[in-house]
């Protein structure tokens, strides 16, 4: 079997390491090169110790990159857009995991990111990277921009409601609780253990950049508002989004079940989690560690038209590397689940 030759640019970060973990065991992939400017010449397992004995690869500098079939770009934001021409020369297909090419509108990019996009004419070349929303486009795509983790959980949770015009346009409130790995592997004063341990830190109460992706993907041509806040909690991996929306009609829970079943009943990585008994009645991030699932639950408020939608993912998997591999599988016509079969751990 001919394998797809891929390289990862920026493989020393958490997302890059997670991508490498998945791709090393993907039956249709040969990982050709992995780059890191900080760790050039070092064994990969020095930085990603979970990969010890899985690979003897060493990091190379991006300047040593050779041509390949597909490049995964796992670089800090603002990097891909400034070097995209060089990467395009190296590979006919690219999956960018940064935020650089997620937005289709250059004005929106400037509004949310605070500077002009370096290559606005390329924004529409990239397919936005949530397979459940853009599967058919991905099958034909050469360039995919993987979605943000907070955005993925929020969008997947709310997409069926907005698509079916069931909720009020201006009253959506989302509170996301996130783990420390979302902040990347660069240390700062706030990540110092005595400061970080045990925190419930409101790190972005308003104006989170991922809001722009949410607006882009679930507005369906209408003017909607999303009020988004993010709180860092004492967890390494995982993300729980609690979304408050207000129904236009007095739908019953059975009606909501139908909406979600119609949207996601055949999706391999989306599970509706809503049970009346047991310990895990609603989505729980810790059960999703290492998996590519997005679990979604909901509860209608009996005393109002508020519907609470709860969605959970592993931010490094469905929120980053796992979702990128899912997109890769679609690009090449592989079974979408290839390399992503891990069902998680319990207890954990």
């Amino acid at each position, binding site marked *: 079997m001919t394998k797809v030759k891929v390289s990862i640019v920026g493989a020393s970060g958490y997302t890059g390491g997670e991508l490498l973990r998945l791709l090393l065991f993907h039956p249709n992939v040969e990982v050709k090169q992995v780059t890191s400017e900080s760790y050039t010449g070092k064994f990969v397992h020095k930085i990603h110790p979970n990969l010890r004995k899985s690979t003897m690869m060493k990091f190379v500098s991006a300047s040593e990159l050779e041509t390949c079939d597909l490049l995964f770009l796992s670089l800090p934001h603002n990097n891909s857009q400034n070097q995209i021409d060089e990467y395009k020369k190296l590979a006919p297909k690219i999956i960018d995991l940064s935020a650089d090419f997620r937005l289709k509108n250059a004005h929106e990019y400037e509004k949310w990111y605070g500077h002009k996009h370096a290559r606005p004419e390329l924004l529409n070349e990239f397919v936005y990277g949530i397979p459940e929303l853009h599967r058919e486009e991905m099958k034909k795509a050469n360039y995919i921009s993987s979605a943000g983790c907070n955005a993925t959980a929020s969008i997947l949770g709310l997409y069926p409601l907005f698509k079916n015009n069931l909720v009020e346009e201006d009253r959506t409130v989302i509170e996301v609780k996130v783990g420390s790995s979302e902040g990347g592997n660069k240390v700062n004063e706030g990540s110092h253990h005595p400061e970080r341990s045990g925190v419930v830190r409101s790190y972005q109460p308003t104006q989170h950049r991922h809001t722009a992706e949410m607006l882009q993907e679930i507005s369906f041509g209408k003017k909607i508002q999303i009020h988004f806040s993010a709180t860092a909690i004492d967890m390494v991996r995982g993300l729980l989004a609690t979304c408050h929306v207000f129904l236009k009609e007095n739908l019953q*829970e*059975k009606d909501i*079940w139908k909406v979600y*079943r119609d949207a996601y009943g055949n999706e391999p990585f989306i599970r509706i989690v809503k*049970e009346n008994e047991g310990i895990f009645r609603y989505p729980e991030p810790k059960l999703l560690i290492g998996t590519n699932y997005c679990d979604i639950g909901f509860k209608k408020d009996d005393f109002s038209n508020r519907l609470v939608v709860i969605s959970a993912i592993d931010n490094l998997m469905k929120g980053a590397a796992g979702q990128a591999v899912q997109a890769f599988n679609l690009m090449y016509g592989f079974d979408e689940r290839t390399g992503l079969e891990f069902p998680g751990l319990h207890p954990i």
Partner: protein
Amino acid sequence: MADSSSAAECPVCGAQIQLAADAVKGELIECSDCGTELEIISIDPPQVHEAPQEEEDWGE
């Protein structure tokens, strides 16, 4: 996908539940979607309702 004509509908989530060939009236089964415990109240036509539950103190 279950043949809905020979399936019962879960009264909680609307899932189509195919009754086993040897199912009997009064039997307790579980909805695979929402986990609700259901009692078979009719085989033909297939019908279920929520099984009575003991109150429990769950959570905080």
